[in-house]
């Protein structure tokens, strides 16, 4: 079946993602110690992912490069608050990257300040602790991808607007010219579907 045929290249891409998240505890420890070469390793592990995500969000390669630099600088400057024993480096780095792009999109839009401060708290390294083992494993990545593919077009749109454009549900309703209640239903059902794929995976 098609679903069985496609995943070869997909699986390879996802495998790379999951490999990136290996041994992050040791890398975090070396980053904290300002070990020569630790930043290089961090970049080699996450640079491509961070750049791909940011470019997808801001759609401008010069701005994307600035924001990638900002992302790594921020990780470098805040790594001391990261717990290398219990923390999940990958999820944190990805979140920091997404938030830099959101800050950029919002400031280009004339919005900002209070929201930027809020993102700042939400991405505090202390929050990225005690994740279940293999938070970004190949299996979980594959499951969430499959779950996303199964969403309706409207559900996909609202998910993308939240993740990649940082829109609130009110803003989504405006953008899509749909009633707020309808948008909320799409959002709720979409996120539930994504989440349940993962909890089912854990239960199996």
């Amino acid at each position, binding site marked *: 079946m098609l679903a069985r045929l496609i995943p070869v290249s997909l699986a390879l*891409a996802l495998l790379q*993602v999951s490999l990136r998240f290996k041994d992050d505890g040791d890398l975090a420890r070396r980053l904290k110690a*300002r070990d*020569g*070469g*630790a*930043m*290089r390793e961090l*970049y*080699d592990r996450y*640079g*491509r*992912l961070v*750049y*791909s*995500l940011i*470019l*997808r969000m801001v759609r401008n*390669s010069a701005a994307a*490069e600035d924001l*990638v*630099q900002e992302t*790594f*600088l921020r990780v*470098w400057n805040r790594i001391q608050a990261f717990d290398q024993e219990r923390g*999940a480096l*990958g*999820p944190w780095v*990805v*979140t920091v*990257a*997404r*938030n830099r792009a959101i800050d950029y999109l919002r400031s280009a839009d004339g919005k900002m300040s209070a*929201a930027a401060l*809020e*993102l700042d708290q*939400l991405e505090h390294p202390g*929050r*990225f602790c005690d*994740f279940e083992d293999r*938070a*970004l494993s190949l299996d*979980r*990545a594959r499951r*969430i*991808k499959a779950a*996303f593919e199964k969403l309706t077009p409207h559900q996909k749109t609202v*998910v993308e607007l*939240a*993740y990649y454009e*940082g829109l*609130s*549900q009110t803003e989504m309703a405006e953008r899509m010219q749909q009633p707020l209640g309808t948008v909320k239903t799409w*959002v*709720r059902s979409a*996120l539930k579907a*994504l*989440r349940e794929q*993962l*909890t089912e995976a854990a239960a199996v």
Partner: protein
Amino acid sequence: MTCEDLRDSYELYALGVLEGEEKREVEAHLARNCAACEKYLKDALGVNALMLSQAQEVVPPSRLRRRVLSSVGQQRAGWEWVAALAAACSLIVALWLGVEKRITDRELANARATLQQTVGERDRLEQAVTFLNQPETRQVNFGQGQPAPPRGNFFLNPRMGVLLIASNLPALPAGKTYEMWVIPKGGAPQPAGLFQSGPQGTAMHILTGAVDSNVTLAVTVEPESGSPAPTSNVLFAAGF
């Protein structure tokens, strides 16, 4: 609202896009360390990170890597270039000499050693770059205006220590080494580390640790194991 009512709000909350009553409720539950909600938030952070890892891969330009690394002082491409160039030059000189008087294995071995040393120096070069990047680092040069003197710079950072970069150093007699001294105002010279020079009479020496900001720095030639106080004339010195 109950924790269960908020179950579907945590992804949005973690993305910073939740608003209104739901956001206030989430914040209230988290503020009172509601265990169920903390678990939901953790799950949501995991879902979000997974979703954000799905962007189609694009290869970033290689200049971006250099830029990121140099912004935190871990880029050594610039230094590598200089060092690799120096190594290449010494090899070219060796080859050119070879035309004149036949290249010796020893000269080739030296060139190779220079290259290997260059690689071994990476960490120290990185340390030096970090040092130079600090705003409070001050610099004094020495050797200007003398006929055939050692030349170079002392960099002093009261918090981090001293970095010395020197060239044109005289070849050391067998069994000798260079020793750096920190001389406080009105005090006796304090030993500040031993170092050797490279094949072209160049040297880099780093003293780590806090240093007074108004000291004099000096270098002398000492017996291989170093001396507690200078035993020869000052080779060069500079005051801050």
